[in-house]
C-alpha cells in the first residue's frame, strides 16, 4: 500500500523524524517497506502490510497509529460533530446478514466539480486518480480511515435501496463500463429496477455521480469478507474497496468514516445533510484480554519485564487495568488481530525490537536416529560412489493414475514412475555427453511416485542404456546397501555456478600419431587452441602400436552468443590441423 509521509504528518502532533527514519522504524518493527520514493516535497512509502494487520493498517490512520506507538509520538485528534438523526427521504432495506452494517447518508445541494489542488495532490501522490470532488472525498476517506465509501446520484435511484443477494444471471455495468454477470453468491446493492453496485467491490454506472448531480446518497457499509473476496475473484475485479473488505474490517469504524466524508464533502462541495440510515444488527462485542508477565516471557524469554508491557500499553493507548500481576486490556475494536496473550507477546516483542532479545542454545541432546531419511541418503551416496549421477525431474507429467484438478495444461498427472522422466534425462545428457566429458551416462533419481491408492519412494537408474526402477526398500535389499552407517558429506562444496550456453554444440575429433616422446608438445598445441577458441576438449582414445602412440581428442565448440556454423568451426579447426602438421613427430590419422 502506498503511504504518504506528509499525510502521516497530518496525523501526528510532533514533527516526524526524517522519511528514512520513519521507513526504517516501520520496516524493522511492523511491516516491510518495499520502496521509498520522493515525489515533489513528499515521500511515498510502499508498505507490505501483513495479512493479520490488513484489518486496521491498510490506511493512513492505521500506519500513523503504528508510527506514533513505535516512536512514542502523539496522534492528532480531529473532532467532528455527530450527524443529524433524521431519516432519509428514500427507503433502505437490508435483506442479507452478509451486510454487517449499512450506513447511508443523504445530502442535498452538493456542487460537483473539480477537487481542490491539495486533494488532487494527496490522491495522485499515492497513485489514485482524481475524478471529481465527491468521488475524491470518498476515496480520501478510504485511504485515510481504511473504510471504503461509495456515493450514488440520488436522482438516478429508482424507488429505494435494497441490499440483497444477486439473482442468477443478473447483470451490472460497472463504473469502468464493464458488463459483469452476477451469481446468487454475490451481494449487491439494488434499487427497484436493478443493481446499483456490487457490494464492497465496485459501483455501477447507473447511479454514477456526474457534473449534473445535486443530491447524493453516501454508502458506508460493512460486508462479509469471504463473500467480497469470492465475488471480486470470480469477476476479476480487485479494487481498493474489495481489498479492504476481504481482509475484514471492524463495523465500528463506519460511523467515524461517515462523519469524516460528510465534513469533507461539505467543505469542498457544500450541501446539506438530509438524514442518515444506520442498520447494525449485531454490533461487534467489546472484547477484553487478561494476561500476566509470565504469559509474555514464556514466549519471548526472560529478558522481557513489566516495564516493557507498560510501555506497550501506554504507547498504543490501550485501556487497561492491573490487579495482582494480571493485566486486563480492552481490545480496540479495529484490532481484530489481537485475541490471545501470544498476540500481546508479538506486540511487545516488536515494540522492544527482536534484536534486543538474546540468543540461547537449545539444551544439548543426542537426537534419535532417522531411519527413513538415512535410507534415502545412504542409497544416494552408494549410487554416487558407484558412478551414478543424480538428477531431479518434475513430478508433473502427461499420463499417470492421479491427476491434479487445476494444473499445468498438458502435464496435470502425477508421475506413476521415475523411469519415463529418467529416459528423457538420459537422452538429453547423452547428446551433451561431449560437453560433460562422459563416455557413458549413468544417472539416477530417487523420488516419490503416485499410484491410484498410494505414494511410494522409488529408485530409478540408467546404466549403459539399461533402466531399472524399484521401490526404495527393494532396491536397498537387492544391492545390500548398508543403511546403518551414519551418513555425512566429507566436505560441503563451494563455488560459483556457471550457466551453460543455450546454443547448439558442434564437436570435432582429431587423432594424432606421436613418434618419439613429445607428448607434452602435442598437449601444448591442443591447450593453446582450446584457450584461443574457448573450446573444451578431452582425450577419448589412446593406444600404442609399433613404437608410436595414438591420441584421439574431441573438441566441443559452443558459443554463449550465437549458433555456430559448420563453416566457422571448419575454419578454426583447419588452424589446429596446420599447427600439428608443423611438427614432424606428429601425424594426423
Amino acid at each position, binding site marked *: 500500500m502506498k503511504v504518504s509521509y506528509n499525510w502521516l504528518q497530518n496525523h501526528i502532533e510532533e514533527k516526524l523524524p526524517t522519511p528514512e527514519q520513519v521507513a526504517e522504524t516501520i520496516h524493522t518493527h511492523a511491516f516491510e517497506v518495499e520502496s521509498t520514493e520522493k515525489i515533489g516535497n513528499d515521500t511515498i512509502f510502499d508498505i507490505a502490510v501483513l495479512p493479520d*494487520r490488513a484489518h486496521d493498517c491498510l490506511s493512513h490512520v492505521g500506519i500513523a497509529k503504528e508510527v506514533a506507538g513505535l516512536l512514542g509520538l502523539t496522534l492528532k485528534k480531529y473532532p467532528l460533530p455527530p450527524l443529524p438523526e433524521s431519516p432519509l427521504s428514500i427507503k433502505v432495506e437490508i435483506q442479507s446478514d452478509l451486510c454487517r452494517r449499512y450506513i447511508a447518508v443523504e445530502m442535498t445541494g452538493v456542487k460537483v466539480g473539480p477537487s481542490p489542488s491539495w486533494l488532487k495532490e494527496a490522491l495522485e501522490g499515492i497513485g489514485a486518480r482524481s475524478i471529481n470532488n465527491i468521488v475524491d472525498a470518498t476515496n480520501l476517506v478510504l485511504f485515510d480511515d481504511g473504510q471504503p465509501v461509495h456515493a450514488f446520484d440520488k436522482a438516478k435511484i429508482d424507488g429505494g435501496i435494497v441490499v440483497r443477494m444477486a439473482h442468477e444471471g443478473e447483470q451490472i455495468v460497472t463504473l469502468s463500463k464493464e458488463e459483469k454477470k452476477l451469481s446468487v453468491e454475490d451481494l449487491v446493492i439494488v434499487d427497484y429496477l436493478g443493481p446499483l453496485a456490487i457490494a464492497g467491490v465496485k459501483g455501477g454506472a447507473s447511479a454514477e455521480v456526474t457534473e449534473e448531480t445535486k443530491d447524493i446518497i453516501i454508502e458506508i457499509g460493512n460486508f462479509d469478507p469471504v463473500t467480497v473476496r469470492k465475488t471480486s475473484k470470480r469477476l476479476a475485479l480487485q479494487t481498493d474497496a474489495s481489498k479492504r473488505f476481504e481482509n475484514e474490517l471492524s463495523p465500528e469504524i463506519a460511523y467515524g468514516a461517515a462523519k469524516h466524508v460528510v465534513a469533507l464533502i461539505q467543505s469542498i462541495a457544500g450541501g446539506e445533510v438530509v438524514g442518515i440510515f444506520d442498520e447494525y444488527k449485531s454490533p461487534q462485542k467489546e472484547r477484553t484480554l487478561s494476561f500476566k508477565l509470565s504469559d509474555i516471557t514464556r514466549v519471548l524469554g526472560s529478558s522481557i519485564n513489566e516495564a516493557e508491557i507498560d510501555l506497550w500499553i501506554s504507547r498504543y493507548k490501550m485501556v487497561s487495568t492491573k490487579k495482582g500481576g494480571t493485566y486486563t486490556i480492552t481490545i480496540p475494536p479495529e484490532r481484530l488481530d489481537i485475541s490471545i496473550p501470544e498476540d500481546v507477546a*508479538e506486540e511487545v516483542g516488536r515494540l522492544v525490537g*527482536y534484536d534486543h532479545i538474546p540468543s540461547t542454545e537449545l539444551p544439548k541432546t543426542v537426537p534419535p536416529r532417522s531411519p527413513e531419511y538415512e535410507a534415502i541418503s545412504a542409497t544416494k551416496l552408494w549410487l554416487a560412489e558407484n558412478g551414478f549421477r543424480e538428477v531431479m525431474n518434475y*513430478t508433473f507429467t502427461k499420463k499417470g493414475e492421479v491427476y491434479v484438478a487445476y494444473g499445468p495444461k498438458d502435464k496435470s498427472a502425477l508421475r506413476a514412475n521415475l523411469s519415463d522422466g529418467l529416459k528423457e534425462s538420459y537422452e538429453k545428457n547423452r547428446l551433451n555427453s561431449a560437453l560433460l566429458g562422459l563416455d557413458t551416462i*549413468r544417472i539416477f533419481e530417487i523420488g516419490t511416485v503416485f499410484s491410484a491408492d498410494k505414494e511410494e519412494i522409488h529408485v530409478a537408474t540408467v546404466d549403459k542404456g539399461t533402466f531399472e526402477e524399484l521401490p526404495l526398500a527393494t532396491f536397498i535389499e537387492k544391492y545390500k546397501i548398508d543403511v546403518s552407517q551414519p551418513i555425512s*558429506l566429507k566436505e560441503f562444496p563451494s563455488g560459483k*555456478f556457471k550457466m551453460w550456453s543455450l546454443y547448439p554444440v558442434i564437436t570435432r575429433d582429431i587423432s594424432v600419431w606421436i613418434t618419439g616422446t613429445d607428448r607434452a608438445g602435442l598437449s601444448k598445441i591442443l591447450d593453446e587452441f582450446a584457450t584461443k577458441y574457448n573450446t573444451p576438449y578431452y582425450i577419448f582414445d589412446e593406444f600404442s602400436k609399433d613404437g608410436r602412440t595414438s591420441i584421439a581428442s574431441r573438441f566441443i565448440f559452443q558459443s554463449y552468443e550465437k549458433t555456430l556454423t559448420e563453416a566457422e568451426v571448419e575454419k578454426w579447426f583447419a588452424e589446429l590441423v596446420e599447427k600439428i602438421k608443423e611438427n614432424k613427430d606428429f601425424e594426423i590419422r
Partner: protein
Amino acid sequence: MDTSQTKNEIQQGTLHPLTLVTEEITRIFTQQGFSVALGPELEDEYHNFDALNVPKDHPARDMQDTFFIKDRPGYVLRTHTSNVQIRYMETHSAPFAIIVPGKVFRNESTDSGHEMQFHQVEGLVVGEGITVEHMKGTLLTFFKKLLGENTEIKLRPSFFPFVEPGFEVWVKFQNKWIEICGAGMVHPNVFKNVGYDPKKLTGFAFGMGLDRVVNVKFNIPDVRLAYQGDLRFSQF
C-alpha cells in the same frame, strides 16, 4: 544395473545440488540435537491446512494457489512441509526437535524466481520453556555453520497462521541482507489440534526454501534449472 566394475574403474558420480544442501543442513541440525522426519507429498486438507490453523476460507486455499487432486475432494499436493509438523506431533510426545526436508508444490506461473515444485526444510522444536531466545540461538548457529562464521541474522515481524508471533529471518551473507526463512512460535491452536497442552508446552517452527539456499550459496540465476534432469546443473 551393472555393479561388477570396481570403484577405481569408473568415475565417481555426483549428487544433485539440492541433495548436497539437504545433507549439509541435516548434518548441522543433527549436531544441534535434531532428528529428520519425512511425510507424504499428497496430503489431506486437514494436515496441510486445518490443523495448522489455516481457516477454511483462507486465500492460500484457493485453487489458484494450491493443487487439488482431481476426483478426490479434500486432498492436495502439500503446499509446505508443515504437514509433517502435525503428523509428527500426532504420533510423538514432546520434548523433541525435528527437521523435515521435502518437496512441496504451489500452483503458480513459473519464471526464473518461481517454480511449481520446490524443496523446503521445516524445523520444529517443542518442549517446556522453549522461547524466542532458543529460536534465535538455533537459527544463528545454523546459518553460521552453513554460510560462514561471520554470518549475522535479523528477525522482522511476519505472519503465518500456525505461529504467533511470526518472523521473517534475514541473513547477512556476502555483505547483503537477504530474506531466507520464515519462523515463529507455535500457535496454541496447533497444539490443541494435536492434543498437546498449550499451557504446558511451547515451541518454535521455521521453514526455508532449499532452492533459494542453493541459489544463494552457489549463485544460480534461475530456479527452474534444478528440475531439468540436466547433469550440467550438478557442478559441485
